[in-house]
């Protein structure tokens, strides 16, 4: 065989799948987003009408706001907790580090659908253990209607998402902590710095790049939130936990409004691809 064709022989099978199932779909999404199409018949070119309609549609803006709240809430809750857990596991004072690392990582391998089943029951209004514990601790006097309220529904989903997100954030913080040169702390000890000073002037600045990386990765991850609210509340009550993905899903697959659904895909793609690009840039600089 001609030598020139050898690399092509190795590359072609992958490229065929890549073109059919990645490149064509993404271009197709862009194409559909500027057309009106119900699954059959001709494509009607409508320019940016679909995009304008997304922002005019109250349900879409609700879904967008919900997604921002749930993604933001998850980040706000899980970033500090995962940093604290990483500090705890990294501390020389803690015995059985390996054991705790494994236990803390466990939620990461659990299927989202399984978490959905567990937390549907754990956060049950009348019989849920969570309400029972909160009441016995005297934190609440009446049961929280987790899945019957759009406020508590979002909060419940933030709690579940945090349980899922903390493990991977913690592992990255741990890597960041372990990469800080010991000499920095030794030098600080010689200068008589206390624990708080060492944390503020060494640990925090040294962790900044990894924190930014975690922040972006989690944002990309959080904006794709779908499974948990879809299973537990199905976006309700009154769209209180509707996510942008579920909005896209029902527009496309239930209503066959493929133009509208694709416009949502495109918005999501552009937003998240820019974030991922920034992340890769940061990653390659460090």
């Amino acid at each position: 065989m001609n030598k020139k064709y050898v690399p092509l022989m190795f590359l072609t099978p992958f490229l065929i799948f890549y073109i059919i199932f990645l490149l064509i779909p993404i271009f197709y999404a862009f194409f559909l987003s500027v057309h009106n199409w119900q699954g059959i018949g001709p494509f009607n070119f409508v320019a940016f009408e679909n995009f304008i309609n997304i922002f005019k549609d109250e349900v879409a803006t609700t879904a967008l706001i919900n997604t921002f709240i749930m993604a933001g809430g998850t980040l706000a809750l899980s970033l500090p907790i995962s940093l604290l857990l990483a500090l705890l596991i990294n501390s020389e004072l803690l015995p059985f580090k390996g054991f705790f690392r494994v236990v803390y990582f466990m939620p990461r391998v659990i299927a989202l659908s399984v978490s959905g089943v567990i937390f549907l029951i754990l956060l049950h209004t009348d019989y849920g253990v969570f309400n029972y514990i909160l009441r016995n601790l005297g934190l609440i006097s009446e049961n929280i209607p987790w899945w019957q309220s759009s406020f508590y529904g979002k909060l419940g989903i933030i709690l579940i998402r945090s349980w899922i997100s903390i493990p991977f954030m913690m592992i990255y913080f741990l890597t960041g902590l372990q990469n800080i040169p010991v000499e920095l702390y030794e030098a600080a000890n010689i200068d008589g710095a206390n624990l708080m000073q060492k944390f503020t002037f060494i640990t925090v600045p040294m962790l900044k790049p990894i924190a930014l990386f975690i922040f972006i990765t989690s944002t990309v991850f959080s904006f794709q939130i779908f499974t948990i609210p879809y299973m537990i509340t199905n976006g309700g009550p009154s769209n209180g936990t509707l996510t942008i993905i579920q909005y896209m899903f029902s527009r496309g697959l239930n209503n066959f409004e493929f133009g509208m659904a694709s416009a949502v895909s495109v918005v999501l793609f552009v937003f998240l691809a820019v974030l991922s690009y920034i992340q890769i840039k940061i990653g390659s600089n460090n």
Partner: protein
Amino acid sequence: MNKKINKLIFFIIAILVAIIIIFPLYWLFIGSIQKSGDIFAYPPNFIPEKVNIDNFLNLFERDIPFYTYFFNSAYTVFFHVLGVLVFSSMAGFALAKYNFRGKKIIFSIIIAGMLIPFQALIIPLFLVSQKLGIFDNRIALFLPFFAQPFAVFLMRQYMLEIPDSLMEAARIDGASELRIFWQIVTPIIKPAFAAVAIVDFVAAWNAFVWPLTILRTQSKFTLPIWLNALIKDPYVVDYGLMFAAALITVLPILIAFLFLQKQFISGLAAGAED
């Protein structure tokens, strides 16, 4: 003395955190071995009084027994992982060990694929699958995922380390390029195979959105979307049954995780689901 007390405090905090993190899984486990009514007992039973395996027995007796879904999941994951390993290692090999025209551009295009969030692909991928005639077909659960840019990136990275002299020596001995790949390269990059296999195994086993999009016939469902169907089914209010089903869904991954902790933690730190 002071240090000993601090150590104890740290240990107690770590144990408390561990209990909080593990509790939902513990609840799943004890829920699956209790009668449905006992799951909702008040005050709750934190330690079950007796073990009851009826929930698991009931899973066999449903119209579609649980092993149908289990088989669907296992079948999907097997081809999912196999395809990704074969195609990404071959592509990674071409990109790492050969020089050819357009190599840089092809590599950039493949890497750009890592920027695409899967959720943005659902709608067009659904339409493409319909065109290909694989809608509501289990093949659609793995075929579209054979092209994983991330896996190619990782494979290439590992293969760059392989010295060219090793391949040259084999060529002088008259080995074909395919044989070099199979007999020299693949044994060396076993760690890359393991890493990709673990990430892909977990992603495929736990996958939710795509099976939900592409499957309509219940006998073709995988475990996660069967759980969804159970939750949504107004005629099933048996939470013990649901817990047993969820436990069966999570058990294979959990067991694999406990055996391969290190590989799981390093591999899965980066991955994400929906």
